[in-house]
């Protein structure tokens, strides 16, 4: 058995990396275990939206707190994560959509938030020049933006390595035991079974977080989705903010290099990759639907070329909210998974939230609605899946 660490984190995606860095910066000895390779799943399939716009009210304060952290993240890590405060704009393409945006604007205002602003069709045309004329208006957040998920993974991984986080890849946790106050992790690595011991544990296992939670008897209803993404060859710059569309699934943005990154929560087929690794397959009719949504907002997108499409497996919790909080069953385990296709924005903050929980510190942020124990009581789920879908696209 390996010597006892202070902390073992399972899952080396953006969430796990962020937690590892925060814990290490607080002086903990950290082991980060990853079943595949770093950042390979949802982190690679992220659209990279740093979005407080159209967020579930429970997450609004958290994302608003994360935004200033994004602004300084690249400097902190010594490597460009590609963050741009480009703004996020959710367009209404017809009257029904506009009415829905207006209703949302009112609700959010009543909750005391001021970051979302309605735009008339004229204001939208100024804010997003060249947008298709049928667009009625929009809801926008000026200081939202986007970053580069792959660059962020690289930056976090390198920083974690520099700080001395011990990263172990191709090692899958298969069981969890108690040993006094320690968490004992039984895993299978490239050389066979291996056991790790730590005083604390974090479940950042993404789509596999539910299975990991079950090992200790926590129940978080979650399903696996293979989120599809596509990227185009560079086009002359025409789009600054990130666009979504009310009533459709769409995330459309243009990178600094001119490429279009197109997603929005479309789900391919979950399965194994051709190579046998966990993954998913593109659904071509959904890809066409995704691209059609982008073309609807900007017809010239049709002359762009898709250079690559890919999927990453993401965990979708039944109520569309992540499970962040202490385990109900195990004294030393903290959950931080199930970000349901909109975890990217929280990456710079999640490390602090989780290490506060580990150290038993009171957090300045209210994460009660995200408590994993919310599913513990028997009975019907409190929110249907379809309600949460409307608020999910990142």
């Amino acid at each position, binding site marked *: 058995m390996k010597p006892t660490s202070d902390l073992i984190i399972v899952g080396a995606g953006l969430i796990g990396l962020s937690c590892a860095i925060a814990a290490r910066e607080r002086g903990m000895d950290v082991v980060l275990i990853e079943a595949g390779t770093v950042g390979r799943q949802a982190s690679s399939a992220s659209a990279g939206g740093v979005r407080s716009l159209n967020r579930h009210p429970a997450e609004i304060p958290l994302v608003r707190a994360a935004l200033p952290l994004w602004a300084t993240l690249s400097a902190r890590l010594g490597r460009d994560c590609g963050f741009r405060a480009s703004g996020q704009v959710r367009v209404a393409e017809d009257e029904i959509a506009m009415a829905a945006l207006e209703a949302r604007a009112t609700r959010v205002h009543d909750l005391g938030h001021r970051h979302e602003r309605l735009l008339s069709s004229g204001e939208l045309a100024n804010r997003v020049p060249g947008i298709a004329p049928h667009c009625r208006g929009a809801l926008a957040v000026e200081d939202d933006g986007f970053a580069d998920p792959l660059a962020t993974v690289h930056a976090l991984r390198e920083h974690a390595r520099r700080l001395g986080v011990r990263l172990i890849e191709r090692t899958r946790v298969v069981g969890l035991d108690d040993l006094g106050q320690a968490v004992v992790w039984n895993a299978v690595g490239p050389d066979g079974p291996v056991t790790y011991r730590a005083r604390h544990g974090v479940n950042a296992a993404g789509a596999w977080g539910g299975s990991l939670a079950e090992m200790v008897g926590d129940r978080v209803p979650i399903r696996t989705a293979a989120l599809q993404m596509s990227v185009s*060859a*560079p*086009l*002359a710059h*025409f789009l600054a903010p990130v666009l979504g569309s009310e009533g459709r699934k769409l995330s459309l943005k243009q990178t600094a*290099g*001119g490429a279009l990154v197109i997603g929005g929560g479309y789900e391919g087929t979950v399965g194994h990759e051709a190579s046998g690794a966990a993954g998913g397959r593109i659904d071509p009719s959904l890809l066409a639907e995704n691209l059609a949504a982008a073309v609807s907002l900007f017809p*010239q997108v049709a*002359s*762009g*070329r898709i250079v690559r499409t890919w999927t990453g497996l993401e965990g979708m919790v039944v109520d569309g909210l992540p499970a962040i909080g202490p385990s109900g069953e195990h004294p030393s385990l903290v959950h931080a998974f199930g970000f349901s296709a909109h975890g990217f924005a929280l990456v710079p903050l999640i490390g602090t939230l989780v290490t506060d929980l580990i150290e038993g510190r009171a957090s300045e942020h209210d994460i009660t609605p995200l408590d994993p124990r919310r599913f513990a009581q028997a009975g019907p789920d409190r929110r249907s899946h379809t309600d949460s879908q409307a608020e999910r696209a990142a």
Partner: protein
Amino acid sequence: MSGGVWRSLPRTDGIPVEVVVDGLPVRAYGGETVATLLLRLGHDHFGRHPGTDRPMAPWCLMGSCFGCLCTIDDRPGSQACLVPVSDGLTVRTGASAVAGSPDTPL
């Protein structure tokens, strides 16, 4: 243009077609591709690399190197070596392989 690098073997037969290259009508023959046509006309490069702005030219002439990209029938980024000439085909060269850059129409 480097001019004179290539010479055409005489043609015994051949169905001529008219292709418009950078706004100018040009006679081409069935069996030619846009790439061999442009080489014959003396174009030493067909486009420019989007990142470095360096001139891009064909290397493999069989569809795998992507050096022959130009705008064919208003489709930017077309592989000229895989497009056979046809009557009325339009070709624009010299642009950045970025669609919609200032010297190509969107």
